[in-house]
């Protein structure tokens, strides 16, 4: 609740700090930017606003009305109705962790369960109570590693197969750090690059190596040599993971990850342009003090009853702000709750079932597309639910025509990797029926035949 100050209060405050006019507080801002004239249209009525916005809303193409083969970090999955109905209960419906947390036992319990579920899924020991999205969680891994070595190791090495947007966000977060050096492995346009190629770039100045599993192209690669060389030099290694894939894959914890981050959107959060999405961040217990954000723990009260407490909270929010290593204070509590409800509902076997459906359907789609003339499935290694297809013409043109036919085509890799023009990243989930896939394959052929 924001309560505006009265003129009397404003005057008293200005007097107290020795400023005559409130405008004097803005003298550091160049005058021409200080109070610009806003070119706003005249006001309209609520009815008119509603009509105009409804027209905009009606212009949207909804993923539910189409057959979607687009993924690249955000995926179309089934969301059980219970997720939304529980999420929207008044007791839960806020994105904030309460400022007097222990009074909200229900919220704390939900956060605790989120942490537990993600820790189990990733095979890690601790998980915090969420970040904004997969990209910012990945950037925080870089921040944490940098501070873990107290700025003495300056290098962060990124696999060329991490999500290109995550790379950009990580670079934005870290570019101001003293002497930081962010480098990337080399991508091979035929996808022949291997995690082992990165080993020669790891040295005793490397703070963190970041890989993605399955990677941005859907590949499931063997990171064991890279993990050992990173650890031999004392570096940390972070895995960016898709939580759906972890329903069938060996956990990053078992593979030796020090940090596991990712996008939680596939866990019961609808596709939407710009979010809100959900970042998760898990690590080993020895790094718990370096973890940004907050951590809820289970305990018992004086009468021996189970209760939840904010065990660790970001120092930066309360004391010693100048020592803060992260600015994450508020989080995606509501989205974390959605993911918690989704994982609880679907359960361990359900997570596996969703993953298997995605895997099988994607492999069916890949085998059918491979039969088309002019198209070539580039992905040769094991893959999860995404694969790369070399197309006979520009992906953008193909997608444009597919859209008119009711299909959302795959991601145009040329838009992120100049060496991958005409390559489409196709995603398939449990939402794509066999009929959808067959129709999509036929449509691909049709739009490239004329």
């Amino acid at each position, binding site marked *: 609740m924001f309560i505006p100050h009265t003129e009397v209060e404003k005057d008293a405050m200005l007097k107290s700090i020795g400023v005559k006019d409130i405008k004097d507080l803005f003298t550091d801002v160049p005058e021409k930017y200080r109070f610009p004239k806003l070119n706003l249209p005249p006001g309209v009525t609520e009815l008119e606003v509603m009509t105009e916005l409804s027209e905009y809303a009606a212009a949207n193409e909804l993923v539910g009305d189409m057959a979607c083969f687009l993924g690249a970090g955000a995926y179309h999955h089934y969301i059980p109705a219970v997720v939304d109905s529980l999420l929207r209960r008044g007791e839960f419906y806020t994105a904030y962790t309460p400022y007097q947390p222990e009074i909200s036992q229900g919220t704390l319990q939900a956060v605790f369960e989120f942490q537990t579920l993600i820790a189990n899924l990733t095979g890690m020991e601790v998980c915090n109570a969420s970040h904004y999205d997969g990209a910012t969680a990945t950037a925080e891994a870089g921040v944490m590693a940098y501070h873990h070595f*107290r700025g*003495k190791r300056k290098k962060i090495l990124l696999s060329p197969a991490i999500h290109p947007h995550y790379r950009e966000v990580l670079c934005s977060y870290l570019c101001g750090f003293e002497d930081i050096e962010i480098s990337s492995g080399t991508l091979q346009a035929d996808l022949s690059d291997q995690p082992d190629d990165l080993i020669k770039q790891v040295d005793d100045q490397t703070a963190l190596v970041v890989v993605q599993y399955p990677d941005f192209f859907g590949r499931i690669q063997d990171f064991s040599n890279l993990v050992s060389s990173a650890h031999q030099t004392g570096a940390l290694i972070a895995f960016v993971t898709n939580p759906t894939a972890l329903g069938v894959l060996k956990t990053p914890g078992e593979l030796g990850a020090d940090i596991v981050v990712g996008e939680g959107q596939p866990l019961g959060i609808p596709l939407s342009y710009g979010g809100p999405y959900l970042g998760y961040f898990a690590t080993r217990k020895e790094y718990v*003090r370096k973890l940004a954000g907050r951590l809820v723990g289970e305990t018992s009260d004086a009468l021996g009853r189970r209760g939840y407490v904010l065990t660790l909270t970001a*120092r930066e929010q309360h*004391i*010693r702000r100048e*020592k803060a290593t992260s600015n994450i204070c508020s989080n995606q509590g509501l989205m974390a709750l959605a993911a918690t409800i989704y994982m609880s509902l679907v359960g361990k076997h359900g997570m596996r079932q969703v993953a298997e459906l995605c895997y099988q359907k994607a492999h069916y789609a890949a085998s059918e597309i491979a039969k088309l003339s002019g198209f070539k499935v580039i992905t040769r290694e094991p893959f999860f639910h995404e694969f790369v297809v070399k197309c006979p013409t520009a992906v953008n043109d193909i997608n444009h025509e597919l859209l008119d036919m009711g299909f959302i085509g795959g991601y145009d890799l040329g838009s992120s990797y100049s060496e991958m023009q005409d390559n489409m990243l196709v995603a398939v989930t449990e939402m794509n029926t066999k009929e959808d896939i067959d129709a999509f394959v036929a449509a691909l052929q049709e739009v490239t035949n004329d």
Partner: protein
Amino acid sequence: MNTPKELKYASSDEWIMVEGNIATLGVSDYAQDQLSDVVFFEANVSVGEVLEKNAIVATIESVKAAADVKLPVSGKVIEVNDALADTPELINSDPYGAAWMLKVELSDPGEADALMDADAYAGFCETRGH
């Protein structure tokens, strides 16, 4: 309150013990009492680092507060008490013994003379209200 005679004290509540050109650093009994139960200790420096006087060398967190530990003299770190991170409660139970934090080779042994002796420090603590 315990203030061993053989130590030197800083107004920021660290003690050092000087033996030749080596100084051992910790925080005082008064400091641990003010902090109450210590739950976390982390050294922010490593062996080999050359530090200026008053450099921040460690962080302590208790159930009540968080505090920085300063090195009241300049010198080169020759040893860090790694065990303390796993047993921060030693800062409460044995502040002048097992809870030593680091040892430095003094750059200027004269700097230690400027610190308070036990009596002066005890007097200084008494002047501070709670």
